[in-house]
């Protein structure tokens, strides 16, 4: 990974130096070693603080909405899953492709600091992925973990190692594709009784503090003004004393991104209350795939999303009542 970072820094400096780009969007270390934040670098000197390792989880594509409004071209580093979001934003005319230089970087999965902590890692200052295991460097020495135990949810259900869009690629150690079923969690809920599902979601949504982190990080939630902030929309709201607001908020949010959500998993990653928000989006993805054919948002820039499309032979809504369960 160190080697990848070296190449990234070298190439970024080169592109800056040649004037092809005038800034670089990447990651830098935040308050703690494990806490990386997106950052803009404008000089070779600044680029020395660019980082890329198993903590570089943030999806940088959304930042390009603002960045491409500025003069000149921006260099951005995108992991395979981030490129889906990037394409989706191109499709929605939110990013000017001409003003971005995309370097796709390899990714073998990002590590969830909370998983490390819950497995006893204290004082984490860095992390390393040797391909087999994840080694956490802590103030008190190294600790070794099985990868599956400590990867972020979004990486455990990785969509693939291919970049959907790029100008250049930096891949030192090709990562092999691993099959996984990202709908397992949804299937499990689907198998429950409605009462059980209701209890599950009530338990989850009650935790919601309406911090809006899921919305703010979501590349599909890129509205200039969100309906929840717009007093005229009729749904504007803040945290509330009972469940309804959360249901309303999360249902509407899931719907607004339905067919546009690339399943990048950022919502779940940033939720401070550990609500498995991806289970909402993935349910819609699962349904759309089942009802209207396989569709992955962000694989291209011109296809029609399932909810802005139709066929005359589409399933009728009674497919839901016919599938059993309670009334």
């Amino acid at each position: 990974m160190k080697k990848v970072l070296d190449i990234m820094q070298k190439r970024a400096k080169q592109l800056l130096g040649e004037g092809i780009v005038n800034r670089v969007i990447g990651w830098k270390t935040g308050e703690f070693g494990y806490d990386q934040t997106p950052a803009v670098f404008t000089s070779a000197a600044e680029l020395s603080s660019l980082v890329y390792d198993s903590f570089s989880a943030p999806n940088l594509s959304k930042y390009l909405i603002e960045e491409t409004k500025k003069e000149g071209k921006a260099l951005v580093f995108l992991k395979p899953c981030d490129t889906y979001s990037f394409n989706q934003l191109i499709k929605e005319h939110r990013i000017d492709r001409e003003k971005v230089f995309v370097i796709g970087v390899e990714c073998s999965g990002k590590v969830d600091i909370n998983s490390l902590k819950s497995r006893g890692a204290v004082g984490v200052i860095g992390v390393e992925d040797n391909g087999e295991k994840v080694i956490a460097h802590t103030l008190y020495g190294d600790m070794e973990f099985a990868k599956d135990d400590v990867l972020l949810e979004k990486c455990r259900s990785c969509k693939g190692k291919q970049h959907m869009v790029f100008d250049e690629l930096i891949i030192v150690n090709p990562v092999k594709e691993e099959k996984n079923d990202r709908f397992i969690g949804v299937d499990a809920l689907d198998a429950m009784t409605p009462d059980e599902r209701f209890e599950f979601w009530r338990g989850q949504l009650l935790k919601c503090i309406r911090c809006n982190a899921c919305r703010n990080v979501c590349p599909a939630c890129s509205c200039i003004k969100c309906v929840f902030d717009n007093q005229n929309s009729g749904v504007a709201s803040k945290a509330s004393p009972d469940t309804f607001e959360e249901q309303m908020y999360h249902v509407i949010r899931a719907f607004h991104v339905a067919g546009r959500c690339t399943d990048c998993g950022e919502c779940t990653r940033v939720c401070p209350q550990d609500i498995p928000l991806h289970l909402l989006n993935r349910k819609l993805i699962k349904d759309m795939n089942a009802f209207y054919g396989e569709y992955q948002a962000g694989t291209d820039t011109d296809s029609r999303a399932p909810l802005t499309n139709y066929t005359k032979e589409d399933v009728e809504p009674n497919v839901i009542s016919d599938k059993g369960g309670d009334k």
Partner: protein
Amino acid sequence: MQKIGVFICWCGSNIAATVDVKRVAEAALHEPGVVYSADYQYMCSESGQTLIKNAIKEKGLTGVVVCSCSPRMHEATFRKAAESCGLNPYMVEIANIREHVSWIHKDIEEATEKAVILMRAAVAKVNLNQSLTAGKSDVVKRALVIGGGIAGIQTAIDIADAGYEVDIVEKKPTIGGKMSQLDKTFPTLDCAACILTPKMVEAASHEKIRIISYSEVESVSGFVGNFTARIKKKPRYVNEALCTGCGICAEKCPSRKSKNEFNEGMDTRGAVYIPFAQAVPKLAVIDPTACIKFKTGKCGLCERNCTAKAIDFNQKEQIIEEKYGAIVVATGFNPIKLDGLEEYGYSQNADVITSLELERLMNAAGPTGGVLLRPSDRQHPHKIVFVQCVGSRGLRPCDKPYCSKICCMYTAKHSMLIREKYPDTEVYVFYIDVRTPGKNFDEFYRRAVEQYGVHYVKGQVGKIVNDGGKLIVHGSDLLMNEQVIIDADLVVLAAAIEPDPTAKSVATMLTASIDTNNFFTEAHPKLRPVESPTAGVFLSGVCQGPKDIPETVAQASAAAVKVVGLLSKDQLTCNPCVAGSNELLCNGCSSCEKVCPYGAISYITKEVRRGDFRRVAFVNEAVCQGCGACTVTCPSGAMDLKGFTNKQIMAEVDAICK
């Protein structure tokens, strides 16, 4: 704050017998914004309307709720009344307390309670209503007719006679369509050419009609009253201005292998040809796929022989761009391909022909000079079998589910003409049903049976086998309940008709809809049969559904009347309940554009705030029909529908659920 008046109609006893109208009127006064309420026996009557008008004037009402019958009934009436005394008509809403309350509920308590709730919802909506002004758009006084068959010709002549310019775009080198290929027409047996060709000439010589032949409409943009069409004119390789239609080129052309389309491929033509003697425009055309000059670079015989110097091998495709106020689709039909219907052996046997081919075999200008000779050996057939419903009314994928409508009558015509001209010929007709609803149609059919001795067999044909020149037709006679085997010399198949293959692309271009069989859909199957659901697009002839000539002509004239009605207006009033985008909220994401069935949404780059240039949605109000599809796909809520805004509908929801 609005000043709303609520008016409760008794509708005689229709409402008042089940709804306590006084109580509704009383309850209305407690609703926000309501300053006045009244009830009256017949609110829609002259005096009822006066009551409303007076209240508007005296109380200075800014909004009106009428609790009465369905808005589908009298919304327009009350809006007009409001408008007559200066209130914007869109400040009036109806609470439907007749069809949705008094007529379906018996319990007065329950009905009154529901009436109050519906009144409350309407008041809640009116509180948020805004004055709407219908936009105006100019009308281009020129019509486009796509297709130059009898339907297109008739429509064009009628529009032109009313004084408006018309362009007919025909994809073939000549107008005339299928009718020009017919020999005689039922039930009068007058010759098709005798009645059609004068119309073709009339169209060509009409000062208001321009015929753009050998051309296709490539794209259409715009909206009712203001369409822009791009028409692609294919190269004829013959200068239209110079060609005199003398036909010397066609005579001299050494290439003779091309199938003659006009005679359904039963004889050949040169690479340069005039489709038929009465073609309009009567101009030669070179088929570059057959022309020796195009293929080898040598020849040019036509060029050397053309005294008018009209041959031009360098002619290029041309694009004509023109504006139109109205568009008429008259794309017509074709007989279906019979390859899939194996039981008839159409592709294997030369003597199994279609009815359209028979028309050519019987026509004096046809390949046999009007003498009925069968294609295989040019012998006179003595036993002919007609098969009806070939590919019509079938359930297999190769069949059409519908009745092609014209076959029963033309088969009766064919059999009658053959028996008349060749009395020694026996004629059998296999049919499922004989359908003859039309003026003088059944009489015509009965003449075929009774006077001309045509053998009608109720049943279908299972297979046709070629046995040494004889066609052995295996059929069933359902009335006698027996198998029938006929050794025929000629078999004529009444092939189903289907819309021209261009129908689909034309429909897409015009955002007009077509049904599962690719026939154009009418705006209303009974009340608006010649209009498509897309404003400004009209339907003429078989493109809308199977029709015979008289029906086609009637519909063609009807479509012309609709076009003339439109073109006679200088300006159109648009529906003010259209979508509109709040530019400050619009992300420019293109979701709305994708679901708009009318292509009303486009994107512009606009400075929404100083220095902030953004791509934002722009609704063409003249094109928008107000369905609201865009409003729901819009993630940011920028798109809203006037008259049915998000806030208005939510206010209604709130009032009902309160």
